[in-house]
């Protein structure tokens, strides 16, 4: 079976533009969270979010913008960066063996919601002609394939907060088994709209902010955590068979060696340690590594009461005594929970941690919950660490769990 390597990274989030910049910000413990500012006549008072507050880079012609929802535009920005870094272009050949696997939770919600405003509030009787193309969940995958000329398999995964983890993991399997030589994998999500955020609020899982420190509202593993902070982001990785990467002399950033996927099959929203452990066990078993060779876990760590304690328990089940030696951090403390993009963004940060031998912190973690008793790398990032392999965890409503493992390419 083919080995699968990473030759490009891309990211855009509230922490900024670019995979390197996002990692530098995360390592420094910078928060992208502040009060939510909606481009709508109504606001949601007190709600904080990891919102992209700067204009998006101008990568698409104005004449083509009608085809793009915000999540597609962000997706193309991240994908473009990853492809550029990989050096793959239209002259690279094998484009029919190149694909796109993308994840998103709710796709083009902004376009749909704007359409509803036109229809139901403004009383209009028609919508923009490209509303469907812009809002459909596979719009970013289609745009990326079109712009890169990738004529192989192009799939979209929608499994809430593991969407992009499944996209990366299934791409890994696809390449491993020889169905494709290269896959641009990742995910994007832009759900900071009045309607969607109001629906999240109704679920009573969003964090409440201390008015003196809104940037610190996302507090995974903390005793006083109050929930998750929604964010928007896109992130991408260029995955390639080792033979493809070596044949074109590509710079190999890391090797993807493990993918585990499971479902709790116990509840739609309550997490389950056995289900989470199954995903981690599967990833480790496939990786050829022992659990003790994994030095860092980028946790799902969303900041909910049940979620953080359950993940702590599942990590202990899988890693045993090694759990106490592992570094486990939740970068959601800084870039928020970016839902369908979360796994891809955190995977990009995990790859960067591996490469830089530096671990971003669980920012603002002053007082851990007694039920959360691992080394969560509180407050400050750590440089010069031994990181032989690293895992990225993602768990979702609907019960889906995914673990991905990367290691140095040797």
């Amino acid at each position: 079976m083919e080995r699968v390597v990473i030759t490009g990274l891309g990211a855009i989030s509230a922490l900024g533009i670019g995979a390197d910049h996002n990692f530098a910000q995360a390592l420094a413990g910078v928060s992208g969270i502040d009060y939510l500012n909606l481009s709508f006549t109504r606001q949601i008072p007190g709600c904080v979010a990891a919102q992209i507050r700067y204009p998006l880079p101008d990568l698409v012609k104005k004449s083509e913008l009608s085809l793009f929802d915000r999540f597609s535009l962000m997706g193309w920005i991240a994908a473009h960066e990853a492809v550029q870094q990989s050096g793959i272009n239209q002259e690279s050949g094998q484009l029919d063996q190149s694909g796109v696997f993308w994840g998103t939770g709710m796709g083009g919600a902004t376009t749909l919601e704007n359409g509803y405003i036109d229809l139901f509030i403004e009383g209009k009787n028609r919508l923009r002609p490209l509303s469907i193309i812009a809002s459909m969940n596979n719009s970013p995958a289609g745009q990326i394939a079109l712009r890169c000329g990738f004529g192989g398999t192009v799939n979209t995964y929608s499994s809430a907060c593991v969407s992009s983890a499944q996209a990366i993991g299934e791409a890994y399997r696809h390449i491993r088994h020889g169905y494709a030589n290269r896959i641009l994998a990742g995910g994007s999500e832009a759900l900071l709209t009045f309607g969607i955020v109001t629906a999240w609020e109704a679920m009573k899982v969003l964090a409440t902010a201390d008015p003196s420190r809104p940037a610190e509202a996302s507090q995974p593993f903390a005793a006083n955590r109050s929930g998750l902070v929604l964010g928007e982001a896109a992130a991408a990785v260029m995955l390639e068979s080792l033979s493809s990467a070596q044949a074109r002399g590509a710079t190999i950033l890391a090797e993807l060696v493990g993918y585990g996927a499971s479902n709790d099959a116990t509840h739609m929203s309550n997490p389950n340690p056995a289900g989470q452990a199954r995903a981690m066990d599967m990833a480790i078993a496939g990786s050829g590594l022992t659990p003790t060779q994994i030095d860092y876990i980028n946790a799902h760590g969303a900041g909910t009461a049940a979620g953080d304690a359950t993940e702590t328990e599942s990590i202990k089940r899988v890693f045993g005594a090694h759990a106490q030696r592992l570094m486990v951090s939740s970068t959601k403390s800084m870039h928020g929970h970016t839902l369908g993009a979360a796994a891809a963004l955190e995977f990009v940060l995990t790859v960067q941690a591996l490469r830089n031998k530096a671990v971003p912190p669980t920012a603002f973690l002053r007082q851990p919950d007694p039920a959360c008793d691992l080394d969560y790398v509180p407050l400050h990032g750590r440089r010069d660490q031994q990181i032989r392999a690293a895992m990225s965890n993602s768990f979702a409503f609907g019960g889906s769990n995914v673990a991905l493992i990367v290691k140095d390419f040797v």
Partner: protein
Amino acid sequence: MTTFQTVAKLLAERIEIDVDQIHPETDLATLGADSLTVMELIFDLEDEFKISLGDERPTLVVVQDIVDHIDRYIKIAAEQPPQ
């Protein structure tokens, strides 16, 4: 402003070219205005002229085809009593 001038102005904005490049007999495909672009343009023109083109799907090849199409509906709208 004539219908042509309005069509040319909105088309030029949409595809980001100089309005002077657009003439009545200019081929839409040559300008880079594909079927999706033309659909969006028609949508903008409906707003601009406060008309509704309904479900008709005419063949639009050159810029003048759009102008003729719009003019026909402006005439229909003018003939209808105000609602």
